[in-house]
């Protein structure tokens, strides 16, 4: 018996509903953040599982695909957390697409293997492969990497850090980590008072701490001081170990794991993201 599968909270979907989704969502955003339907593209990408078997995964791109090759087009690749699927995070994607102005940013969001309509089973290497597949798609659209920001939220910080540190397809220009975890082992040790190894519970490593030192791109880190899921201290050690030339911390007093954009205020949150692009 292992707890690996419990780390992932993937749920299968037969269809993506996006705006029409009526289930629980991570955030609720107003109509001012709506996206022109012509700018929403549901994509299928080919990833692979840890055995190398091809797997079809789903993604959604917000923005004019014809502009992806333009150096001025800013693109956020949002690596969502352990939440169930794209529909759950759709409001967040809409929000980010409006950073710096109405529908100004391109946002690419993927459902990892096992999430939503994506084939396969969730896994550590699978998440990285899926993000590489997304980067590959952007490359085919003409993106160069410099205008791409990887945004890893919670569990999504793992593939974001891995691809930022060890890119295989495109080297992203910037990295944003919101409420990242440090590693599975530290997660275990934060959960107990003792120095118990992570291997007593999970086979997962999720070793952001081991990879962040290889990230040279600028880093923006957002974390709530009251985060009861990934404690603030975990994000702090990741932030401290980043060796890039620029890093910025946004520490949200009394912020929990899921409410940072709310506590910051959506406008302020988007300003932080947009301002960071100039770094």
């Amino acid at each position: 018996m292992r707890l690996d599968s419990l780390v992932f909270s993937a749920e299968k979907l037969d269809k993506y509903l996006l705006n029409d989704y009526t289930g629980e969502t991570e955030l609720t955003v107003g109509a001012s953040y709506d996206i022109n339907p012509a700018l929403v593209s549901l994509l299928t990408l080919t990833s692979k599982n840890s055995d190398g078997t091809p797997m079809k995964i789903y993604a959604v791109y917000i923005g004019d695909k014809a502009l992806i090759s333009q150096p001025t087009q800013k693109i956020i690749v949002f690596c969502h957390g352990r939440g169930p699927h794209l529909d759950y995070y759709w409001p967040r994607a809409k929000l980010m697409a409006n950073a710096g102005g109405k529908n100004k940013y391109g946002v690419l969001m993927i459902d990892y293997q096992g999430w939503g309509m994506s084939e396969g089973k969730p896994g550590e290497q699978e998440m990285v492969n899926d993000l590489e597949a997304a980067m590959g798609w952007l490359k085919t659209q003409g993106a160069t990497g410099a205008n791409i920001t990887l945004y890893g939220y919670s569990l999504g910080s793992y593939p974001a850090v891995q691809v930022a540190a060890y890119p295989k397809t495109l080297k992203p220009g910037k990295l944003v980590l919101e409420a990242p975890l440090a590693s599975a082992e530290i997660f275990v040790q934060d959960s107990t008072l003792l120095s118990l190894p992570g291997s007593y519970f999970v086979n997962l490593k999720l070793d952001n701490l081991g990879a962040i030192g290889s990230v040279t791109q600028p880093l923006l880190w957002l974390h709530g001081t009251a985060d009861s899921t990934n404690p603030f201290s975990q994000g702090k050690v990741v932030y401290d170990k980043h060796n890039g030339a620029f890093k910025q911390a946004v520490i949200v007093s009394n912020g929990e794991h899921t409410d940072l954009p709310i506590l910051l205020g959506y406008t302020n949150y988007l300003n932080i993201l947009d301002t960071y692009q100039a770094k």
Partner: protein
Amino acid sequence: MQKKVIDILLVLVLVSLSRCSATRDVKPLEKGETSASLSLGGPLIHFGSLVIPVPFSSLGVSRGLNERLTIGGAFSITDALFGVYHLETTSLYGILKPRRFVPGISVLLDLHWIVDQWEGNFRFYPVVDLNLYWEVSKRQDLFYLNFSNWFDFASTRSDGSRQTYHWVPAIGVGYLFTPGKWSFGPEIKYLAPGVDNSKMIVAYAGIAHTGALGIYFKVARSLK
């Protein structure tokens, strides 16, 4: 979503903490006496809307070498389900026998040897218990107080930071019914008293946001 996250973490944490605190012998066995025991229960956790003890279990065997010294061992069933092999070797020494209202006093050295089958990670934790016990009936039921001390010698954590907790105490109170060769009874423990649990990942059922309460039940049978 948040609830699911917390529930999962509770499972993780409780399984780990339950490793630390099962019920153990408090009164030395008679010379030549052998006893087998099953210990159930663990720290209390908030699981959804419920507060439940962690479903922990271990099997143990003890033998009295003489009137003062009892040695034994226990194997964690719950840990084995996780591919983690957790063996305890115990040495219980009776310092003072109980007399009317004067409690018996015993000290237990409990060595925990833990290794997993996945990566072979090994941990060793010594535990020292001080027990005060009273015989409260002719059939030698026991009421007891227990002061348990876990020690962690690791100097650093995985992130390179200092391992803060080298000593994790617990306070317990229990009652052991002894109708003949069988004995059984509950024990309540207060784990890590005084340690702020409000900033920990798991919402322990503690006292005033400190520590964690645990409920245990032990069944033993004398095999002499």
